[in-house]
């Protein structure tokens, strides 16, 4: 017998977790002397109240869809990939190399190669921890963390050395050729007669993110590989019995995960910056953990959660202007609390709810 109806499991529990996280965040806002309800209003207005705000919200959401999917795919194989940050960082190098190699005439030509560059480099950076987990049993959580630090060092070296633009003092690469510019929402929607903010960085990568979400869904629930990944994640001993190779699953899953995290570089490096800069990932790799947890590792949930976190990030910047006592790190606090409540304190909400539903069921049957 099921303990809880499905809707409660999929929607009610995460919703209550989210409310709790927001409630505690509200207490923090109160503690620094600001009005939490006003803060919510500012964030809502800032993230959805104008096409510029919406453009930024969806731009951040694009990043979070990529990193959220990356974490989720790994979760399904019971692998905890904390290395999205480093994988996206290294993927930026792949994008830069692809875009600087040729004087691209048109973005449609450049994009496939940029995607290959981002995917290959991101996957590569995930492959080493994956190999060490699969073959040597090194805990992938710790190794991926270490690889984040190593990635930052590699990036620092490249942008102060081989990839550094001779034209500026800053640690950044040469600008990409103009032909690599990805159309923004403004440029895409103008022909349709829809007025969208020119300043917002939202670009075609958002569509790529949605496509990735669909592909991940198909992969996990419609293909043999996805079947094997989920089976392995549920029970390693059963997978062994069925002849599903753990090495193969760990490697393939992490390669896919790393490549997905790498797609973030398409949105930021190619779509927004037009050159490679040092810390372009800005914690999106970690936000992916919260997004995956919140979205129950399902692509549909991840898209929703990513948009929510996009609103938080964009709204957080708005807070800076209107509430001097709040910093944008408030968003980090909210994210941490969401991870805590949805990821680690799930049972706190789930257990009483299960009892409630059991009680209701009994009553119904008695009646």
């Amino acid at each position, binding site marked *: *017998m099921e303990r809880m109806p499905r809707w409660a499991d999929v929607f009610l529990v995460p919703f209550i977790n989210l409310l709790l996280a927001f409630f505690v965040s509200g207490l923090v806002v109160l503690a620094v002397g600001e009005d939490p309800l006003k803060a919510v209003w500012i964030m809502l207005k800032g993230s959805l109240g104008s096409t510029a705000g919406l453009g930024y919200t969806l731009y951040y959401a694009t990043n979070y869809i990529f990193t959220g999917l990356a974490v989720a795919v790994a979760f399904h194989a019971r692998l905890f990939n904390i290395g999205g940050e480093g994988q996206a960082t290294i993927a930026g190098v792949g994008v830069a190399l692809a875009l600087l190699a040729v004087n691209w005439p048109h973005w449609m030509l450049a994009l496939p190669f940029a995607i290959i560059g981002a995917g290959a480099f991101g996957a590569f950076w995930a492959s080493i921890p994956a190999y060490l987990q699969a073959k040597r049993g090194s805990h992938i959580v710790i190794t991926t963390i270490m690889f984040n630090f190593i990635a930052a060092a590699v990036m620092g070296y490249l942008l102060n050395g081989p990839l550094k633009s001779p034209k500026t003092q800053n640690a950044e690469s040469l600008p990409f050729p103009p032909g690599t510019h990805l159309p923004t929402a403004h440029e895409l929607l103008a022909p349709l007669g829809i007025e969208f903010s020119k300043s917002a960085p939202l670009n075609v990568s958002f569509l790529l993110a949605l496509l990735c979400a669909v592909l991940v869904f198909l992969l996990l629930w419609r293909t043999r590989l996805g079947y094997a990944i989920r089976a392995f994640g*549920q029970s390693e001993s*059963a997978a062994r*019995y*069925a002849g*599903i190779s753990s090495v193969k699953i760990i490697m393939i899953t992490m390669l896919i995960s790393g490549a997905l995290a790498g797609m973030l570089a398409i949105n930021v490096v190619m779509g927004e910056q037009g050159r490679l800069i040092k810390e372009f990932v800005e914690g999106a790799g970690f936000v992916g953990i919260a997004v995956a947890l919140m979205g129950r590792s399902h692509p549909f949930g991840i898209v929703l959660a990513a948009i929510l976190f996009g609103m938080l990030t964009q709204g957080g910047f708005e807070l800076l202007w209107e509430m001097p006592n709040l910093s944008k790190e408030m968003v980090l606090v909210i994210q941490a609390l969401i991870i805590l409540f949805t990821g680690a304190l799930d049972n706190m909400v789930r257990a009483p709810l299960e009892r409630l539903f059991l009680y209701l069921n009994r009553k119904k049957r008695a009646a």
Partner: protein
Amino acid sequence: MGSNAAEGRQATAASSTPPAIELRGISKAFGPVQANKDISLSVRKGAIHGIVGENGAGKSTLMSILYGFYKADAGEIFINGEQVHIHNSQDAIAAGIGMVFQHFKLVENFTVLENVILGAEEGAMLRPSLAKARELLGRLAEEYELSVDPDALIEDLTVGHQQRVEILKALYRKADILILDEPTGVLTPSEADHLFRILRNLRDEGKTIILITHKLREIMEITDTVSVMRRGEMTATVETASTSPEELAELMVGRKVLLQVEKKPAEPRDVVLEIEDLKVTDENGVERLKGISLQVRAGEILGIAGVSGNGQSELLEVLGGYRTASGSIRLNGRALDLSGRHSDGQSRRAAGIAHVPEDRQREGLIMEFAAWENIAFGYHNDPRYNRNALFMDNAALRADTREKMERFDVRPPIPELAARNFSGGNQQKIVLAREIERNPDLLLVGQPTRGVDIGAIEFIHKRIIELRDQGKAILLVSVELEEILSLSDRIAVMFDGRIMGERLPHETDEKELGLLMAGMQNGEAA
């Protein structure tokens, strides 16, 4: 119902001294499952009392309540005539109760001494406690034939010695009442005999012992009184001397059991499986299989008998493709790879081997997957289940599952239900349906009826024999001697990674097989 017959001979406690243990009206439910229903029991001091019942009858739950592991929903407990309230193990220990669990609760990389004092230390420092325990262990060793090296690490001890440590733990805590949960399941017959000697010694010293088991032979051999449990209820309590195994079996099951499965004589044909000098060394460098050779022909069931842990699991794992080995295995004359890329479950399935694993929850099924997903498990690459090179055909899978559920009488017949929501018997039927309907040349079956209810057991046995009659080769591994005797056409006994001998079921009996299982060849003295 047999309980009426037993009522007339209800064992009564001696009126002079209060019973060591008295339970009144104990009930316990786990969610919708009523594990114990209004149970009352009285055990006199200085007796060995047996509790028998099938898997899931509620024996272990009852004892766990007595030991404070679970809290009863209702009921009272009296020890030596006084009511006690047991909220946790500490209370049980204080009341003089000690328990030896089926799965030992020992710290593997601690010494015997450290395990014995754990939780019963004398003070904040370890040294005095260790010294005291060492002295006591020395005394107990002589008194009760309970000798163990106090400085040995648990992981280096045999299972029998580990069990002694558990008993020593209880005695160190001054237990007067000792509960043993299925203590002989992991022991060789000679180890079991030694255990029984210890238990008799303890009884003679005035200790009260409760023995939980499903083996009637043990009940008859060692207990003074016996209670029978069935589906959470206590159906009878009688003096052991006044009952018989047949009566107890009837009380346990609730009706006469057909111990003999009906089957035609086997018609063995060509050799399907040929194993020669198979050797396995495990991760820790321990040799698990020490040169096994055997054959299975088409149209016969070879039963492998043995106490669990003597290499049967490893044999199945090698044949199933997920353990490397040396030696040779031929299937229909063709050699199978024993290591490397082609020694995985997929290659074995492709070669015509199907496998009902010993542990369906850990291996045979993905408990969180729906039944229809489990039907493809291991065969997910089969073209029948795949629409094209990329996508699986979930609709075909569901349809196939529905048909298999019908043919194998899986209840409820809902393909969308997750495996964990089926009962043990129905889970096993799902696995069996998946493996048998592959129409394999060789079927490996491990513990086919472990944790399965009586009705399903008959069904499963019938299906296995049907497959044999279709001319398939079957290798059956079971720790249940009865199952081996009634299903097999030939019996091989394993002990310590070796085949001790082969017998024909009608030319042998439990006694002879038991000796072989204990590592004794014909003619050798015990």
